[in-house]
């Protein structure tokens, strides 16, 4: 049985890039532990020699010619951005 403590939840929240308040961490620790308890029963299944099933689509991924198929749609690409400047997305300063 895995029980998540507050510090583990803090780490998961950071990996998920979601700000969580101190209070929220406690609540989430409870919720996430409930969910993990629930999925714990999988451990009893015998999967000896079983290959993981990543997709039910019985397909070989198709290949196409390596060529440009679209482009020149800068306006469209930027049209929903919260902040743009001179045809670019604007991000906070990342280099000191």
């Amino acid at each position: 049985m895995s029980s998540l403590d507050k510090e583990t939840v803090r780490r998961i929240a950071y990996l998920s890039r979601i700000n969580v308040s101190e209070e929220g961490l406690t609540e989430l620790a409870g919720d996430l532990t409930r969910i993990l308890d629930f999925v714990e029963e999988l451990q009893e299944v015998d999967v000896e020699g079983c290959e993981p099933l990543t997709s039910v689509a019985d397909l070989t991924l198709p290949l196409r010619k390596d060529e440009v198929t679209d482009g020149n749609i800068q306006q469209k690409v930027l049209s929903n951005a919260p902040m743009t400047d001179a045809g670019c997305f604007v991000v906070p300063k990342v280099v000191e």
Partner: protein
Amino acid sequence: MTDLTKLTLAEARDGLAKGDYTSVELTQAHLKSMEAHRNLNAYITETPDKAIEMAKASDAKRAKGDAGNMEGLPIAVKDLFCTEGVQTTAASHILEGFKPEYESTVTSKLFDNGAVMLGKANLDEFAMGSANTSSYYGNVINPWKGKDGKDLVPGGSSGGSAAAVAGGMALAATGTDTGGSIRQPASYCGIVGLKPTYGRCSRWGVVAFASSLDQAGPMTKTVRDAAIMLGSMAGHDAKDSTSAPMAVPDFEAALTGDIRGMKIGIPKEYRVDGMPEEITKLWENGVAMLRDAGAEVVDVTLPHTKYALGTYYIVAPAEASSNLARYDGLRYGQRVMDEGDSLDDMYSKSRAAGFGKEVQRRIMIGTYVLSAGYYDAYYNKALKVRRRIYEDFANAFGKVDAILAPTAPSAAFAIGENEDDPVKMYLNDVFTVPASLAGLPGLSLPAGLSSEGLPLGLQLIGKPFDEETVLRVGGVLESAANFTAKPFGQEG
């Protein structure tokens, strides 16, 4: 004059062809009904101007003798399908105001075939939920009422689509199904919902939740309507590498009404502990109807059924945590940033403000099961159990043509129930999740009423890419069940 909102797709198609009414009239009748039932909150965005414009164009097209399979038929589109120039939210705050610059493959096929869009239907946020109570844009209310008159959930995640069809606010609607999101709300609202085989419909332009499970499908009033609409949604698409390069059959032609000699499997593992008596009864009635129609009923075993929910609640959140990483407050959607914030601060604040509780929980569970040290114990293990579930069905389908089971373990419940514990809500998907994990087609159709007078659905599961058998058996079951009850106390 006929109430145009009570027509089936097939009836409306025939009426339009005969010139009994125009698409504009049909569309106006539905827009009026949407206005009258706004309290149910079935739509996030209504598009009346676009609808009338599309209906006019459709009438003009028909006048020139050029009518598609869905010509002039007004439908609701789940707000998970990107629609060009029309706000697409996935019921999330983080996508509020997002107007795609492109049209999803499924909606463009429907529009090419003549369908008219009435608006964007409400859903659970990012299609994560079974009650349509996680939408940022408010709960959807089921048009059906129990004896105590309380507001009931429409099911989820395609709750707005189901409520719109059941309430006469659309002739039909698109839905998407990841673990039951078409079939379970169809059952709760007394309509037909078909989740096609994984790969039958293109996922391109559908906001992604769990890419190995997501599949679009029709939500309609009848089995015939589902066959008609699926024909206009399905087909190979080079833009979705998992869409199957297969021809689209004439699904309507599959409705022969003849299932003599067909073998229908009854999985004993679906008789779960604590299943309400009326669900057991409903299922037994369904078995009797199919037997009466000349089918042979066979017991089958799906031994890993009890592990399906656990598998799903690892695989789906894992894929979701990866898919939803794209909401970064940069390229589209909401951004929250204060003076002096770093890039990480901006990501974390935007995502905390933009995602609701259930979405945050699933992203974090997914992140956890994919993280170093836990990947093998959880994620990889789940993928292996998923193969066991897949093999169970393959073995069963060596013996039978289709499987019959209940759609959901209960009728629609009151808004606010099952909210105290996330796991309680997950249990609503117990009968729909296995077929999703195996990528199989599943059809839910209304087959009876609960003691409260609420609709209950039965589910037919078929072999991969054999929607035709599912529809054929569904058509027979539909005729035998003769479900005529309607919400709002309307006469059938």
